[in-house]
């Protein structure tokens, strides 16, 4: 996802000199093209996340579309107030990009994990929270972000994620990306944890259950028409690589409450107890309760 993002943005930036990319001194060799060929559109701000974010807002105030790139929580929590005041409340055209959503940085430890970011970013006014599930969605979404101006949070995985989309999907802000349709229930997910959701759907299929697999890249704008039209009385499972509070699960709960819909809603997310464990992404997902077994259980209970 990371490489697709940079490659796509570079292509967009070549065509549009209003695109500016700022990194907080992260992404070794990743931005060589930018630095070499588009030096006017690239800034390494050093390790100054707070100033970097206000600076991005200042640059955006002159009519630029500014992407600010760093790892997981460095581009979000380290400079939260700058995002809130200078980007969101001022409605400046900044895209906060975090690489390493969830436990992607694995053994580097919780300092490098983004497990509370969705909750915090989606609470900010004017902020659009976007989390693609693979390189294909990342490419489409990066193009959308390069040609729009809303304050946005783009939560990327890291590298080497398998594509869950077979073809380039039609991605529209506020719409779900339905990867597979079934009538025995729904799995909604966001981000690279989709691979766990996909494995669950395959396992359920072997058990004779056809479950819809749906990617939710636009977390801050759920498709309410879709929710109203859904088959009733089948399990719905929300899967995210994020703490149980405030993330995609919460967004669905809020939506169902506002629509006054009674649904069989289940949530697979990180418990708050084991966040500080050491391990790779796969280990940490499992240790924090994000697993195929847990998802499947919600469907075989009925």
């Amino acid at each position, binding site marked *: 996802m990371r490489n697709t993002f940079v490659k796509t943005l570079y292509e967009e930036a070549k065509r549009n000199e209003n695109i500016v990319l700022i990194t907080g001194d992260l992404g070794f060799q990743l931005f060589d093209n930018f630095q070499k060929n588009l030096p006017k559109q690239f800034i390494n701000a*050093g390790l100054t996340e*707070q*100033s970097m974010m*206000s*600076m991005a807002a*200042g640059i955006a105030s002159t009519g630029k579309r500014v992407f600010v790139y760093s790892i997981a929580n460095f581009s979000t929590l380290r400079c939260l*107030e700058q995002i809130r*005041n200078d980007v969101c409340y*001022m409605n400046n055209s900044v895209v906060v990009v975090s690489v390493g959503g969830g436990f992607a940085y694995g053994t580097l430890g919780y300092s490098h994990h983004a497990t509370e970011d969705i909750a915090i970013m989606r609470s900010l006014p004017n902020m659009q929270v976007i989390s693609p599930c693979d390189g294909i969605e990342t490419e489409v979404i990066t193009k959308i972000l390069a040609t729009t101006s809303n304050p946005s949070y783009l939560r990327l995985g890291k590298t080497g994620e398998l594509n869950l989309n077979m073809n380039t999907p039609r991605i529209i802000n506020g719409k779900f990306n339905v990867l597979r349709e079934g009538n025995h229930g729904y799995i909604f997910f966001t981000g690279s944890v989709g691979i766990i959701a996909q494995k669950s759907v395959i396992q359920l299929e072997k058990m004779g259950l056809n479950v819809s697999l749906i990617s939710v890249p636009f977390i801050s704008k759920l498709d309410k028409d879709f929710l109203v039209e859904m088959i009733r009385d089948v399990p719905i499972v929300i899967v995210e690589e994020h703490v149980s509070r405030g993330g995609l699960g919460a967004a669905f709960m809020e939506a169902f409450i506002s629509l006054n819909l009674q649904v069989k809603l289940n949530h697979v997310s990180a418990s708050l107890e084991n966040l500080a464990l050491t391990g790779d992404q796969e280990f940490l997902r499992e240790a924090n309760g994000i697993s195929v077994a847990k998802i499947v259980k919600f469907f075989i209970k009925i």
Partner: protein
Amino acid sequence: MTSAQREDAAKALSIQARREILQMTHDAGASHVGSALSVVDILCAVYSGSLNINSKNYSQDDRDVVILSKGHACTALYAVLSLTGFFPKTWLRKYSSNGSELGGHVTSGSIPGVELSTGSLGHGMPYGLGICIARKRNKVSGKTYVIMSDGECDEGTTWESALIANHFGLNNFCVIIDRNNLQSMGSTESTLALEPFVEKWKAFGWDVIEIDGHNFKELVEALKYSSNKPICIIANTIKGKGVDFMEGRVVWHYRPPTEKDLLEALEQIESSKS
């Protein structure tokens, strides 16, 4: 306009602005009157023709950008902007009341001439340098002036920004520090020492000039100064300047003027005209 005319205009403006500040803080029962009286002469010099910013050109790309980073001194900015024609004076009468355009800290959005909402310290400088970087790279003229407090120099972003401005050679960037030596709970030196202050800025690669922040001749002169480096103007000021019972007293960071305070203060401002 000659320099002398600008000085006279700024001086006349400062008397009116002080009256408004006192009236606004009194009417609203609001705090930070001391901070506003400290910074107001700087703002009067800024908006009296020394810079390329006025009520007609504040949306133009090449204007000089002025950001009041010490958002708590908002009454000074509101008064000066209103008195120089950016928005109606009637707005001042509703300052800090329910539904007012003018919030209790500098609030952007619907107020002509206000570039950035501030109130949380340490935002103006990095925001301003972002504008400078963008302008330099796109060959847009116009400088950016960030007016901040000395207490604000406790913030990490101040020194991050000092590094960045120097690194990117931002000779279109000027920071004006309202050096009144007082912050929230006491003197800057007893709270978190800033001295040797000039040397710190110099060590960060800035061109530093130190002036009397209530002397319009020095202010107008300083605003003309240009350099190949980012500029830091340390304007030595007195918190509560112009009202003897407020001068140099931390309590006026918080206390709104009573009716009696207001009348006494207005009288002092009036007699300062001569």
